[in-house]
């Protein structure tokens, strides 16, 4: 099928399947799924700048579906989500400007590929260490449909030290059961936004773990809140990329038909797993993304 905006020929069935898989992962892990969607779009011949922008547009729709589902389970901290959106948008804008600079310099594909591999591998390495240590140290708390939102982590001593930092104003987040400095929330969001604008997607692969390990948000709430925040930041990112000519909305709409149903399945599934198990299951995802980027780098397929 020909998509006139990007000038790409891509099978719609392929796009729907990619969307469906990413929808499940997004609903379950609270991520945009760009570490799969970006490379998956590149593999079929879409340029990185179009892959980044189009993926962001598709993430907006998928996150709307997943958040509505998570909200029904009480997994969304709206106050935290709105605050984070401010930092994320600032970071996303700087990230998008970086992409434009690299486009002008003519080496956008190589730089983005190398940075994404480094980020994906680092996140997976840290999370496998933490979640395995947590699961070995303590029996995970059961999580049922009505289950507890409490969580535990082997990194909790660092999280508590961060929460004790008295940098006013301090923000109380009753839904998450956390009180923390506004500046720390904004910093976490800014870093996530920077990667979102630079690598594409909602950067949930950075923000979801950061919310758990740095802010101390229970995993289920981090998943739901991250998705809510992704709606705002990915909408901004979509707008920003669209005016720069990086979004093929037709591809995004076709992908989303699969993602809409996948996101609901993913969101419902979180109710049957404890926090550390969700984090451990998260580990292979960025590694898959890294493997796809390495493959495309080595084969020279549309780099």
């Amino acid at each position: 099928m020909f998509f006139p905006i990007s000038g790409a020929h891509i099978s719609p069935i392929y796009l729907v399947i990619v969307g469906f898989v990413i929808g499940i992962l997004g609903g379950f892990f609270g991520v945009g799924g760009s570490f799969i969607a970006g490379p998956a779009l590149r593999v079929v011949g879409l340029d990185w700048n179009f892959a980044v922008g189009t993926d962001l547009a598709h993430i907006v729709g998928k996150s709307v579906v997943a958040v509505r589902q998570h909200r029904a389970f009480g997994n969304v901290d709206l106050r935290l989500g709105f605050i984070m959106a401010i930092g994320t948008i600032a970071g996303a804008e700087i990230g998008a400007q970086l992409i434009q600079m690299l486009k002008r310099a003519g080496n956008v594909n190589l730089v983005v590929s190398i940075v994404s591999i480094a980020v994906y591998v680092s996140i997976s390495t840290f999370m496998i260490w933490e979640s395995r240590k947590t699961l070995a140290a303590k029996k995970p708390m059961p999580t049922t449909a009505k289950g507890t939102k409490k969580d535990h982590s082997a990194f909790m001593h660092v999280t508590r030290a961060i929460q004790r930092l008295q940098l006013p104003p301090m923000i109380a987040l009753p839904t998450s059961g956390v009180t923390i400095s506004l500046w720390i929330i904004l910093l976490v969001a800014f870093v996530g936004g920077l990667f979102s604008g630079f690598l594409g997607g909602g950067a949930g692969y950075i923000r979801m773990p950061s919310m758990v390990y740095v802010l101390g948000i229970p995993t289920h709430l981090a998943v739901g809140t991250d998705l809510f925040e992704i709606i705002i930041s990915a909408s901004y990112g979509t707008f920003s990329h669209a005016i720069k000519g990086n979004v093929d909305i037709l591809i995004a709409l076709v992908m989303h038909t699969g993602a809409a149903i996948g996101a609901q399945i993913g969101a419902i599934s979180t109710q049957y797993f404890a926090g550390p198990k969700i984090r451990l299951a998260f580990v292979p995802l960025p590694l898959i993304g890294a493997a796809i980027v390495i493959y495309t780098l080595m084969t020279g397929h549309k780099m």
Partner: protein
Amino acid sequence: MKKETAKTLRAFLIELAIYAVLVVGYFFLVLHFLGEGLQRLEQNHRYSYAALAIVLMIGQAVLLQNVTTFLLRLIRGRTE
């Protein structure tokens, strides 16, 4: 419990089949009626295109979720 799971799975598979048919029809609608117009808008009015892209995405998300919820409720109601 097993019977309940089998019923849910069956309802879900029927939903998927109906959803797939609806989606194929939707592709033709979207690509034929929106494709050309969106391309023109993208080339000539980038800001309008950017705003419309977000509206389309959110609109489709709400629409498809309502469709899937409705289908599942309908199918489960009929199989019970």
